[in-house]
């Protein structure tokens, strides 16, 4: 059932021009960023060779490209997710799902999975860029795997927040703005909050605040460090906002 809803959502994304525009824009921006980095890398390569343990291609070219993808996703995910619930509500098509023998959880997880499938395409296209150079240079496959995982976790968190925003309103544009606002607030405040709480020795609130700082959790994996807490935090964020979205839809049934 989740698969049915997910494939419907993925299909709905691909029949709208928005998804194609996002894919094209992301690819142009990241492609340019990647080539620019690669160019810089080639220019300083001779100097790097003199270092005792020089940073490699993966670290200097692939990792920044992934960081850039994270920034692009901040804009792309709210736009991709905005229609998922808000537009179904506005067009009264949500009734079809609510009248079918499908639970709220299945509806929300299905929509989330559809969105993640689309984001996976973006992430795989990003991964494809460094892989094209596999024949010409020594790739650090461990670091690439960690970067891909980090991006997936980040995307999942963004997707859950955006889906929740979409469940709040009947206006897709409002949903995108809410999602963007929530994500931006998290990026700006989550890190500061968790840092200052930790400085004061309040470790539990600091750990809690870290759940809401997606970029801080992106960093360790982005350097190839498997920090289990940085993996758990985005998962908690994702689960938390999906739960909120389910509750929100359920509340609509109860309160009208």
């Amino acid at each position: 059932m989740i698969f049915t809803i997910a494939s419907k959502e993925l299909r709905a994304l691909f029949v709208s021009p928005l998804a194609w525009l996002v894919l094209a824009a992301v690819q142009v921006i990241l492609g340019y960023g990647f080539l620019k980095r690669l160019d810089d890398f080639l220019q300083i390569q001779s100097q790097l060779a003199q270092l005792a343990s020089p940073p490699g291609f993966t670290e200097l070219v692939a990792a920044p490209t992934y960081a850039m993808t994270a920034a692009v996703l901040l804009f792309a995910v709210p736009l991709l997710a905005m229609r998922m619930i808000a537009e179904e509500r506005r067009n009264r098509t949500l009734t079809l799902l609510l009248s079918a023998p499908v639970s709220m959880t299945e509806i929300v997880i299905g929509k989330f999975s559809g969105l993640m499938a689309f984001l996976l395409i973006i992430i795989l296209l990003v991964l494809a860029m460094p892989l094209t150079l596999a024949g010409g240079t020594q790739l650090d496959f461990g670091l690439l795997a960690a970067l891909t995982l980090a991006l997936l976790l980040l995307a999942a968190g963004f997707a859950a927040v955006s889906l929740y925003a979409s469940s709040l309103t009947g206006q897709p544009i409002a949903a995108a703005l809410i999602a963007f606002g929530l994500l931006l607030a998290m990026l700006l405040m989550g890190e500061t909050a968790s840092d200052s709480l930790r400085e004061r020795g309040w470790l539990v609130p600091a750990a809690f605040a870290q759940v809401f700082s997606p970029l801080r959790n992106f960093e360790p994996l982005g350097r190839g460090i498997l920090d289990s807490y940085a993996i758990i935090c985005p998962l908690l964020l994702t689960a938390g906002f999906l739960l909120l979205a389910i509750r929100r839809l359920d509340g609509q049934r109860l309160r009208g």
Partner: protein
Amino acid sequence: MNPADPALTICARGLSRRFGTHVAVHPVDLDLRRGEVLGLLGPNGAGKTTTMQMLTGNLAPTTGEIRICDIDLLAAPAQAKARIGYLPETPPLYREMQVGEYLQLVVRLHRVPKARRTDAVTRAMARCGLAATGKKLIGALSKGYQQRVGIAQAIVHEPDIIILDEPTVGLDPNQILDIRALIRELGDKHCVILSTHILPEVEAVCDRVQIMHHGAVVYNNTIAGLRDFQRGRTVTISLQRPPAIEILQGIAGVAAVESAGNGSFRLRFSPDNDPTPALISRAGAEDWGLQQLTPAQTSLEDVFVQLTRDEATP
């Protein structure tokens, strides 16, 4: 009435719904039997749509319980919903999908086994006159065809209960006749709840009528029983050479005569004593020049107006 009656497909007891302080539906009872077509009538804002939303699990009732084929809708929503097909006021159509593709999605959502899916979709499209439109985008169809897709969506998984909220809105007269015939046909195997404003439609297709007003059921009777609800019946005649009104009054069975001017009269009589045959033979024998004789057709309308107009709308 025994709630465990196996013929009872919907058994709702004490169903009510409040939105904040506004009571949309007062506790109502609703029963639906297999093979029955129930017409749900009422003026705008009477609570018909709210009741239907509660019966289909789209809205949780404030109080009361709903049993669908003896399954508690609130305790086991998935099993109960699988037995219902629902066409809301606005058909829930994805405009960017093709008709066939959309119905495929609907059967998958309703967990129809894989082997029966294509069959179910083909049959529903044929029943709703959509056989030639399978590849068309829903958004490109006319309103009437979109309505048909909405009905197809409600029947495609062969549910026991079909709930249609104003199914003939926006259709042309031919399409309305088609849809009525379809509803009648559906009523043989399934059972149907139909909400509408069009009273002749109810008389044409329904077995039973429930009239709602201000969130309460004010009338619940079979169409056959409707006749007895009205104490007397009326017939309108128009005559070219009318006799004196006393002569008409003298015909056996006529309870009262009213002149409507221009040789037209409204005759009231009691249901067990129909004076129409006597009236026709007298008119022929005495050369009254009978032009028209119309039995009152809008008995349901009378009931409806009587029940929903007596109180001033707030």
